[in-house]
């Protein structure tokens, strides 16, 4: 099969970008979308043109490195998968496929289809952890966790940090990502001591990074490769309200340990 791809090309953050359309060589429908880009790039390189820059790593849908907005949908046409798990059999012979980078101010563009998602790391650094020093942990079975809670925490913890939720949202809101992190730890007994401090620190950092607000459009849930539920956003809203009502304890510094 053959397709055309209309790709966003932009040399770097400071230059102007534009779409360029390429004809693919003959493709096998069992190729992944990224393998299709590999093949197109190989052709470009041999011609002496610059290959299309795109982010990828594990190519099995777990590292969260790959991005791309394919025909208006982050991670391509299928539900519950990442771009690297999108296969060419999902497209038709002769399709014109539009490929764009994730668009969000807190994800500044690096080159072509690559964006910088460090803002997610900074949100994590603000409070996305349980403060436990190595070596200080009690026996793992000392604190039983109801299976329902463990399972729900696991549902949230599945987030691969790809940023598709932000890319899909018309407000570039990071609520699904942050709420998944907050809920994962907030659902476990180990996470209770820092529960309210965590949610406050992470939400405040999220705001500081310039992500938009949630208007409950549901785009994020629809594109999430791990199909993380909007329920977690509600849970975070609840926790954040509690943290506001509780206020800060006296005399502690923010951030870190």
């Amino acid at each position, binding site marked *: 099969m053959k397709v055309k791809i209309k790709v966003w090309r932009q040399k770097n953050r400071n230059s102007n970008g534009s779409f360029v359309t390429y004809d693919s060589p003959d*493709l096998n429908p069992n190729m992944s979308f990224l393998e299709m880009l590999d093949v197109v790039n190989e052709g470009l390189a041999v011609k002496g043109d610059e290959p299309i820059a795109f982010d990828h790593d594990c190519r099995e849908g777990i590292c969260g490195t790959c991005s791309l907005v394919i025909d208006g949908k982050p991670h391509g046409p299928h539900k519950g998968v990442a771009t690297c798990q999108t296969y060419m059999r999902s497209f038709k012979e002769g399709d014109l496929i539009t490929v764009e980078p994730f668009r969000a101010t807190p994800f500044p563009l690096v080159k072509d289809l690559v964006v910088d998602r*460090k803002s997610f790391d900074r949100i994590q650094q603000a409070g996305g952890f349980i403060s436990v020093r190595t070596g200080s942990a009690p026996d793992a079975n000392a604190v039983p966790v109801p299976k329902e809670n*463990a399972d729900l925490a696991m549902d949230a913890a599945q987030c691969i940090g790809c940023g598709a939720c932000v890319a899909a949202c018309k407000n570039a809101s990071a609520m699904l990502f942050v709420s998944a992190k907050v809920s994962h730890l907030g659902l476990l007994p180990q996470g209770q001591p820092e529960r309210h401090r965590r949610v406050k620190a992470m939400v405040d950092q999220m705001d500081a990074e310039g992500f938009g607000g949630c208007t409950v459009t549901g785009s994020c849930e629809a594109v999430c490769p791990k199909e993380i539920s909007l329920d977690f956003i509600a849970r975070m809203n609840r926790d954040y309200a509690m943290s506001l009502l509780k206020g800060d304890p006296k005399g502690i510094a923010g951030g870190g340990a």
Partner: protein
Amino acid sequence: MATLNSNIPTGPLAGKWNSHKFSSKLINPANKRKYKVIVVGAGLAGASASATLAELGYEVENFVFHDSPRRAHSIAAQGGINASKNYQNDGDSVHRLFYDTIKGGDYRSREANVHRLAEVSVNIIDQCTAQGVPFAREYGGLLDNRSFGGAQVSRTFYARGQTGQQLLLGAYSALSRMIGNGGVKSHTHAEMLDLVVVNGHAKGIIVRDLQTGEITRHVADAVVLATGGYGNVFNLSTYARGSNTTAIWRAYKRGACFANPCYTQIHPTCIPVSGDYQSKLTLMSESLRNDGRIWVPKRKEDCGKAPADIPEEQRDYFLERMYGAFGNLAPRDVSSRAAKYVCDEGRGIGPTGLGVYLDFSDAIGRLGESKIRERYGNLFAIYHEITAEDAYKTPMRIFPAVHYTMGGLWVDYNLMSNVPGLFVLGEANFSDHGANRLGASALMQGLADGYFVLPSTIATYLATVKPGSRPKVDQAEFKEAEESVRAMTRHFLGSKGKRTPSSFHKELGKIMWEYCGMARNKAGLEKAIQLISALREEYRTNLMVSGAENEWNQSLEVAGRVADFIELGELMCRDALMREESCGGHFREEYQYTGADPEVQQGLVNSGDVKRRDDQFAFVAAWEHAGAGKAPVLNREPLVYEEVKMSTRSYK
């Protein structure tokens, strides 16, 4: 010749680690912050080490080539992590985990290292649980376990099908905490391109910023490499595309010995290759073998038929037939080779004939589809996504693929290489898995090294370093290292040949898989060495790299990594050629059991199983770089077994 002192503590095996910790020097808290440690990599080992060192008070700088310290390929481990907790009351113990690991590694690992690994395994589970890793639980709220290949007890802790990601997120959260409070300085999109050795000690690294192309020098009192394995030398593997050998290879070229490079693990349960365009192979967790039965048709003629049309009596459940006691849970190397044999006999299935069935119909009949869905739902979904087949209805097709490298930089008991001040953790070192790694042990080793071993043993080196004695980055050694990196970059960008780095990588991969893959022999390895050396020459003269130096340039990144893979590939073939025995994942066709051997007649092993030669090859092969164009030097570290008797590995 390098000096290889394994520094294994004296005394009884079970007490070595504790007595070593007690007798090791400590660094007082006020002095710790005067020491700076560079950690390269943020997978399980790198992230856990960075966080823990910072918690102890050391000044830590962490470098990753990824855009975030949460992307390393540890994240892809599916099945689980072993620990000798004996929560199942099925007879597990530290000693049993130690013994299983030694045996699984085919008696080619260090007893003391493996025992320490088994000891700290229990602390890992405690630590990770406290961090909020959502391990699977039973209804009573306590932790659940599953069984895994190479063990007859259930000691594997898991978090659905993504244990690796959950453990990595745990380590990443610890690292994030320390970045947030200033304990760790994090550099992302920062690729280490050289090691700086000053007066024989590792004191810094040279780094390229992948976004801007800027090359910078970084100095520290010690350098820790936790940069993962090198299985991408085969091009097609279950590794992430970005996984590479560059950090450890350049350390090798600066004097660190490379140990047992030929020990490669071929994982039995991967999705078969479908075409030449393929960029990676996808693993189906070994845990599937708990409930799936592996078979091929008994007769070649049936291979083209739909699996449902092949009646039960015409199926060959070959692992159950060959390895009764372990059956479908035989270790990875054994299972992979068995699959290769039946395919070599022409009984492989699927379009390429390189595949076997992994069938869940019995388990679905026994437990119901919902139970199977709960256990493996995401794996079945991955399989469906890739193959468009429904494994609840029809058996999966699987075939072995390169999955892990047991070899790596040589380290002593303290995880320090033969270059003082250079520590190597996780898959990047060679230390704990011998010639074959058991399932669910890689996560265990990465976290053991990072959380519990290095933070304690690094003090033995730092105690010998005067605080504040760090060299300056404008010293000659740093300038020289930076200049060599710049020269290499200039060389690549000046290459005006006709072939892309990826095309060389593919060709290298084919040579390696053909001659240095699941089965190796003398003639093939000698041929591979010739082919690789010709490939290396062509790489020098016929390479083309697009783009410029001071920008995001993926071609340039790949060019450097492939150059290192080509050189490493040659060393792997040399090592495989030198090791005239079969052991674990290293299978030399000349050295296998046949019907004439008493072990086969006694029913201990099968004909075709690996045959070790303990009298001549019970050693660690540590290769030393001798300079460009010169053959590497082989150093031998003898493997001394005090506790376990080396015996024929039997899984029958």
